């Protein structure tokens, strides 16, 4: 290995630097110290408490989260003086069990907490199923933790310990938590001393396991375990030293360029292989990958076998390996493995020794043999089957999956195909002779093989052979063959049939596999296109939920942050909501950016599994999935598919958020622009009349002597007119303010249209002095439901507007009539009309101000106010140009109130 080292490895390795940085970054997170022992009874808890006492003397805020004294007096004495966190009673199967109270610990926030027995399994219903997960959360919260661990509980040593002691420990902790530990202290005791302590009763032994444990504490076992513990600790220490050296580019004896590949199959021993690979990788300090190759046989696996593969792959991920599934690209699995190994520079391949029969190997070839033959310079570790203890599946019992129901139709078709071939053969035999008959049968067989796969085609082969023999090979109508040439021909025919049907069937199954992959790629592609075209957040959420639900056959909810918490924003089926308890799991996922809920390590009691949705910019939401009935939610292939879908959905959600952000910025800019235009316009509209008034009044005061009477009254008229204009403008501003603040609450009552028109004409009489006014109001017009003051203001604004845009000697017409269930009122002028481009915006607030049109007085508030008032009274207002001549026409329509009929004038007299 040393020879392989190159110059570049003398430089600090980036991974090591990163790891060190991460460790330093964890400044925010707590430090973990593990007291490791080879076996129970070596005194880990005692040692931990003593160290903690010393810390407390230094003034550190230490509390005891959970410590099992097992009634030992020395240990109990050490507990004295510590603040001990009360345990949390939890009811489980009619028993009250007390557990470590993580919430209380997080609330109390000591600087150091003691949590005994790291490998402990929590009572179902606790936040985490395992205590080490509680510890991880404590560390994440920035609390230092002291904990204890026996060597047999370490996941990767699980098999080895089971081999040594013949006792398999079910409570394990992943190796990653040891990697994470900032300090590991080995509590060592010689086997003799330990046995002595056991005899003195100083070792806690549960009653029911007394006999088993007696065997456990044999000197041989204890020596082996002690060695294991020492080696494990030494390796950790070594690793820390190495990382330190690497980070500082200190050259040292570390291995370089090693990479381990472990082949995972549905074989029950795969989990053991994975653990072996982990140990190998620890020793070689090499990265490792668990590889699963999907072949056409994978399609025929039972649910249980699939689960086993999934379990092994998950285990690999838990043990910090990489888990990869690839489809088989060649005929031989060994070739696929070698190709992958070369592509990824693997130097070691770990594979289980075959347990298959010799016959199977002769027929199908042995992967192990192939691998060894072709491995070249890659080391192949073949792990003997009996070396590994099979463990019962840890997966929850799954109802036996309904295997693909037996389909009779392919076999019927196979029989029919042979029958048809037989018929045709009988017809053509006299013409073409015996030689060509077998080709007709072969055609039928190939057809069946291509369409229905291996087994129906084999049936067809058997039937075809029998028919061929029976009907065509002399002596015909018997199954005996006399002519040796014919025997040879028959054998060749059979052989050919089998080979052809096998080939065709293999092609068919590959097509099926490919088709399934293509389908999933196609739907992923379709999904991304759908997302790209979705404009609103709702569309994106719905598309994501729907896609995940339909591709993975699960129920889906999407939760997004809102007001500091997260709430369900979409779901499929759409009516799906989640319960309060599940929402807690979703919140946990959101806050910790980690997976939680059903099938996970955190709050596994929840009905839903929650996954964080992340993008490069950070967490954006939470995805929840569930399905009816028990069993695991996802297979490993599905997990990857779900990740792909979640990523795409997350990106799309982020895109919508970004677009919204941009929109908001643009709107703010637009508002700013409008505001400044408005200020300019308002100050113009306020100052112009004021300037006129001041100027005229000043002139009257200063120049009264030199002014003639006509000029004086002209100036006075200016003062009065401009003051009135100012007054109207201020009234408009006030009205607009009222509308904006929502303070307009119409005081509606039944009113006579003509009365309000009359009042408006009276008020505008001065402005409209030069115009001709025509009023056409139907005599039997029903009363309308309006606020008289607001409605009159609308009319006033429309008339005021007309007076500005139509010349003095033209006619302004006010018309009102009944149109079915509405009353219409029009104000028409004979001006130039409204430019078509402006028609759509004429009621917009400050439209004229926005256009910077200062030619005519007024900000264009009048029309906006008119629309606001009319809409507040449940009416409509529209602007148009007159069809008959130039000029604008504004039409107000108001519904006729139901009660108005009885109030028609006729009834009043």
């Amino acid at each position, binding site marked *: 290995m040393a020879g392989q080292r190159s110059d570049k490895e003398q430089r600090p390795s980036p991974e090591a630097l990163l790891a060190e940085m991460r460790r330093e970054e964890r400044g925010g997170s707590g430090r973990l110290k593990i007291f490791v022992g080879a076996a129970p009874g070596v005194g880990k808890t005692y040692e931990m408490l003593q160290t903690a006492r010393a810390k407390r003397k230094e003034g550190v805020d230490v509390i005891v989260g959970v410590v099992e004294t097992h009634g030992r007096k020395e240990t109990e004495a050490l507990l004295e003086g510590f603040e001990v966190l009360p345990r949390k009673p939890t009811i489980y199967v009619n028993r009250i069990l007390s557990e470590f109270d993580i919430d209380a610990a997080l609330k109390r926030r000591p600087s150091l907490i003691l949590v005994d027995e790291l490998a402990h399994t929590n009572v179902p219903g606790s936040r985490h199923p395992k205590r080490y997960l509680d510890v991880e959360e404590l560390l994440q919260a920035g609390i230092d933790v002291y904990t204890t661990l026996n060597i047999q509980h370490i996941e990767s040593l699980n098999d080895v310990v089971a081999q040594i002691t013949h006792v398999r420990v079910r409570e394990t902790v992943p190796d990653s938590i040891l990697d994470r530990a900032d300090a590991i202290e080995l509590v060592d005791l010689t086997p003799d001393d330990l046995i002595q302590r056991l005899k003195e009763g100083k070792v806690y032994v549960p009653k029911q396991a007394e006999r088993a444990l007696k065997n456990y504490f044999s000197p041989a076992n204890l020596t082996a375990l002690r060695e294991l513990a020492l080696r494990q600790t030494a390796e950790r220490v070594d690793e820390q030293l190495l990382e330190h050296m690497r980070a500082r580019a200190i050259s040292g004896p570390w291995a370089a360029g090693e990479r381990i590949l472990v082949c995972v199959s549905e074989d029950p021993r795969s989990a053991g292989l994975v653990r072996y690979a982990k140990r190998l990788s620890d020793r070689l300090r090499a990265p490792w990958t668990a590889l699963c190759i999907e072949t056409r046989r994978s399609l025929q696996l039972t649910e249980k076998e699939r689960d086993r593969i999934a379990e092994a792959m998950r285990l690999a991920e838990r043990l910090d390996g990489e888990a990869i599934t690839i489809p088989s690209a060649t005929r031989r699995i060994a070739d696929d493995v070698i190709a992958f190994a070369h592509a990824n520079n693997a130097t070691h391949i770990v594979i289980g020794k075959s347990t298959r029969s010799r016959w199977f190997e002769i027929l199908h070839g042995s992967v192990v043999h192939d691998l060894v033959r072709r491995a070249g310079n890659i080391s192949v570790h073949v792990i003997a089957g009996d070396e590994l203890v099979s463990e019962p599946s840890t997966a929850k019992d799954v109802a036996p999956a309904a295997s693909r129901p037996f389909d009779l139709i392919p076999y019927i078709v196979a029989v029919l195909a042979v029958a048809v071939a037989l018929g045709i053969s009988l017809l053509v035999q006299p013409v073409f002779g015996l030689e060509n008959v077998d080709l007709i049968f072969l055609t039928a067989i190939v057809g069946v093989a291509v369409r229905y796969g291996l087994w129906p085609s084999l049936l067809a082969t058997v039937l075809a052979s029998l028919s061929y023999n029976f009907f065509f090979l002399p002596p015909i109508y018997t199954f005996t063959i006399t002519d040796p040439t014919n025997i040879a021909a028959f054998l060749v025919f059979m052989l050919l049939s089998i080979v052809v049907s096998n080939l065709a069937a293999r092609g068919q199954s590959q097509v099926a596999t490919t088709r399934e992959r293509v389908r999933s790629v196609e739907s992923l592609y379709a999904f991304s296109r759908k997302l790209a075209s979705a404009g609103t957040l709702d569309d994106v959420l719905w598309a994501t939920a729907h896609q995940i639900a339909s591709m993975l056959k699960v129920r889906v909810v999407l939760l997004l942050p809102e007001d500091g918490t997260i709430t369900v924003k979409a779901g499929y089926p759409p009516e799906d909501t989640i319960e309060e308890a599940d929402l807690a799991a979703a919140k946990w996922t959101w806050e910790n950016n980690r997976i939680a809920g059903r099938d996970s390590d955190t709050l596994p009691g929840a009905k839903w599994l929650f996954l964080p949705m992340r993008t490069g910019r950070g967490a954006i939401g939470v995805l929840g999935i569930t399905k009816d009935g028990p069993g695991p939610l996802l297979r490993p292939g599905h997990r990857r598919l779900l990740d792909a879908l979640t990523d795409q959905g997350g990106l799309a959600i982020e895109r919508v958020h970004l677009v919204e952000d941009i929109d908001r910025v643009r709107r703010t800019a637009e508002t700013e622009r409008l505001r400044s235009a408005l200020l300019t316009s308002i100050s113009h509209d306020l100052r112009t009349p004021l300037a006129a008034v001041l100027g005229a009044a000043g002139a009257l005061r200063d120049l009264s002597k030199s002014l003639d009477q006509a000029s004086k009254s002209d100036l006075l008229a200016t003062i009065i007119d401009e003051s009135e204009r100012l007054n109207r403008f201020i009234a408009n501003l*006030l009205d607009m303010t009222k509308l904006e603040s929502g303070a307009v609450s119409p005081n509606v009552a039944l009113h006579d249209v003509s009365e309000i028109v009359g009042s408006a004409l009276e008020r505008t009489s001065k402005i409209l002095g030069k115009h001709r006014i025509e009023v056409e109001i139907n005599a039997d017009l029903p009363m309308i439901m309006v606020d008289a003051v607001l409605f009159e203001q609308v009319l006033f604004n429309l008339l005021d507007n007309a007076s500005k845009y139509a010349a003095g000697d033209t006619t302004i017409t006010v018309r009102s009539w009944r149109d079915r269930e509405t009353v219409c009122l029009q104000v028409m002028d004979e001006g130039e009309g409204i430019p078509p481009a402006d028609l759509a915006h004429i009621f917009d607030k400050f439209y004229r101000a926005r256009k910077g049109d200062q030619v005519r007085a007024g900000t264009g508030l009048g029309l906006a106010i008119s629309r606001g008032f009319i809409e507040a009274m449940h009416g409509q207002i529209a602007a148009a140009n007159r069809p008959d001549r130039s000029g604008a026409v504004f039409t107000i329509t108001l519904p006729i109130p139901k009660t108005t009929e009885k109030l028609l004038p006729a009834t*009043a007299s």
Partner: protein
Amino acid sequence: MNTTPAPKILVVDDEPPIRKLLRMGLSSQGYDVLEASDGKGAIELLAKKPALVILDLGLPDIDGHDLLRRIRHRQEALPIIVLSSRGDEAGKVAALDLGADDYVTKPFGMDELFARIRAAMRHQLQEHGERPLFQVGDLRVDLVRRIVKVGDKEVRLSPKEYDLLRLLVQHAGKVLTHRFLIQELWNEPADPQYLRVYVRQLRRKIEADPERPQYIMTELGVGYRLRAPD
């Protein structure tokens, strides 16, 4: 005018420019002007026996409506004209209900104010006896013989229409609230829309152009006012 002392008008307004304007305007019409800038001063000046009060509703020390009530309490027959702002129809109606005789909306023209003052004063004088014959423009109403004529043509009115016109004539130039008219015509609360129906009918009979009335003026949101004889 030489023999009788000039009528006194009390102006209650906290804005000096408005008081100044009113003082100048009213003096030019031969009135004596008393000025108060708040409610306290107004109450004190009542002792000087003003003939009419012009009262701004927004005062610094006391709510305008409260002051109105207190003045009315002391001097039942004293005509009061309220200064109010546009859009405060409810405030106007409340003031009229509390006994104000009329109102002027700010900003106002002097001629408008003088007309209101004349109408209020005339009405006070009329309290003692109705003038039998009323004429404004072409409209003539003989209250004794109950004859209504527009020009030379006699107009036939229903009893309710006549009652409505009589009420308006009796208070010509003054605004009459919907409530007052309804109370007088029906002696019980009724929907204002009945009143509007009668006003429309009456206008059709006496106005040349009902859409642009010359006699019965609409005070939107408040009531009606018959034009006073010039």
